[in-house]
């Protein structure tokens, strides 16, 4: 008998005496994240419907595979084989590790999935079901410390997705000055990804959090203060950016498959 049922503690047989709906939040988190994982896995393996008329899905950008349609490749740079061990390799699978790694190691998502998926703990003051716990001190969870490397990679992706959003202001003939619903969807997705990255705890640390003397670094202090303010809403940006990226992919997929028409405000 361990934990709250240890012999020295108050003898109470219930795992928790909470009377509120403490299970609602982890359940909702589980539902949303699991749905996203299922959808993202399906899309990552689908390998199609990711480009149409200067709209590229964020799941497939940058498109680095030889299998990519020419228009989706930035600067003709597509050095990776379209097959691996004679199996077709979807362009999304090549790059997905970076945004996935960034979110998996994110301090906010860690809280969310430790609670919702691993129930460690399911909610505050609700006993967890595991007999042993070593936290993030051993493999594989010690790899959570790689968050900053995924953060740096995430910044590169943000630049690329911002480029994609700008490119979407071209019309079907490749001329600048057009704007469609797809442009707005990609702009919103890129903007939310920037907000998510900039409000990140690692960003806050890198910008100035690691300093001992703010007074000797006034510019970094100012930047740290701004990032700290954004950091208050990091969880919000984490969710909005997740939905924004998923919706951008859905939108491009529907347009590319012909199910939806991309409405142009002006061409």
């Amino acid at each position: 008998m361990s934990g709250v049922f240890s012999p020295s503690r108050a003898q109470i047989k219930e795992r928790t005496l909470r009377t509120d709906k403490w299970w609602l939040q982890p359940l909702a988190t589980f539902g949303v994240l699991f749905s996203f994982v299922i959808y993202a896995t399906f899309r990552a393996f689908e390998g199609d419907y990711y480009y149409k008329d200067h709209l590229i899905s964020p799941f497939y950008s940058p498109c680095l595979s030889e299998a990519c349609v020419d228009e989706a490749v930035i600067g003709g740079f597509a050095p990776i084989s379209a097959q691996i061990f004679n199996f077709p390799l979807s362009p999304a699978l090549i790059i997905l590790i970076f945004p996935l790694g960034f979110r998996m190691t994110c301090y906010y998502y860690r809280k969310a999935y430790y609670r919702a998926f691993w129930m460690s703990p399911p909610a505050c003051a609700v006993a967890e079901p595991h007999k042993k716990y070593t936290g993030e001190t051993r493999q594989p969870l010690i790899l959570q410390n790689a968050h900053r490397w995924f953060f740096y990679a995430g910044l590169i992706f943000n630049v690329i997705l911002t480029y994609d959003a700008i490119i979407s202001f071209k019309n079907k003939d490749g001329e600048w000055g057009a704007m469609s619903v797809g442009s707005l969807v990609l702009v919103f997705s890129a903007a939310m990804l920037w907000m998510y990255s900039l409000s990140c705890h690692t960003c806050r640390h890198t910008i100035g959090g690691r300093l001992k003397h703010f007074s000797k670094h006034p510019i970094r202090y100012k930047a740290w203060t701004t990032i700290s303010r954004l950091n208050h809403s990091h969880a919000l940006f984490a969710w909005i950016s997740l939905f924004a990226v998923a919706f951008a992919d859905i939108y491009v997929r529907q347009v590319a498959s012909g199910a939806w028409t991309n409405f142009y405000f002006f061409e």
Partner: protein
Amino acid sequence: MARKVNLRIWRGDSNSGALQNVEVEANEGEVVLDVIHRVQATQMGDLAVRWNCKAGKCGSCSMEINGKPRLACMTRMSSFEEGEEITVTPLRAFPVIKDLVADVSFNYKKAMEIPAYEHPADLGPGEARMEQIDVERSQEFRKCIECFLCQDTCHVIRDHEENKKSFAGPRFFIRIAELDMHPLDMLKNRKRTAQEEHGLGMCNITKCCTEVCPEHIRITDNAIIPMKERVVDVKYDPARWLGSKIRRREG
């Protein structure tokens, strides 16, 4: 206006115990501690409860109210629905002494394990100077009233008694962060010892400590995560490690 409320109070000691029902009067403006005192005065004369300031500043009346770690003196009776049963137990992460009193001495042992502030050798008494922006981060952590609600709710020790020997807990992570961010503290290796001796790596940042803090200290965001990032600087980031060797920065 007075009303009757139903309380379930845990009564017992380290050998045995159970929840006991009691009906008691509650008046407008009262808090849970007032009602417990009324029970003590009228129905359970030997009920053990620890309290002191009744103003949310001493951290003595920590207990669990409807399963949530709370200060009894800061939990208003008006926050409960009419007719709602209110369950009051001692802190469930620590050994019970009697009734609502838990043995929190674990925390004092952990406090002694944290190395104290180390003053610069070249500065005499009264010569230390610090700018406000250099100390304001640490000042948030000085608001701690040592109620140990954060320690109580932390599942690392609440659900795993065996972790108590190797895990200092959120209250002491804010102490370590306070000292590590202190502009004049000269002690090296605070980051490494936070990870290797005080169990920072065991925290999986589920933020329960922040949720229960009556002083609203952002324990996870402002102390634990910054300390985890500082640990990454010295233990898991080869680029930073190399930089610290070349440029002789603090490691």
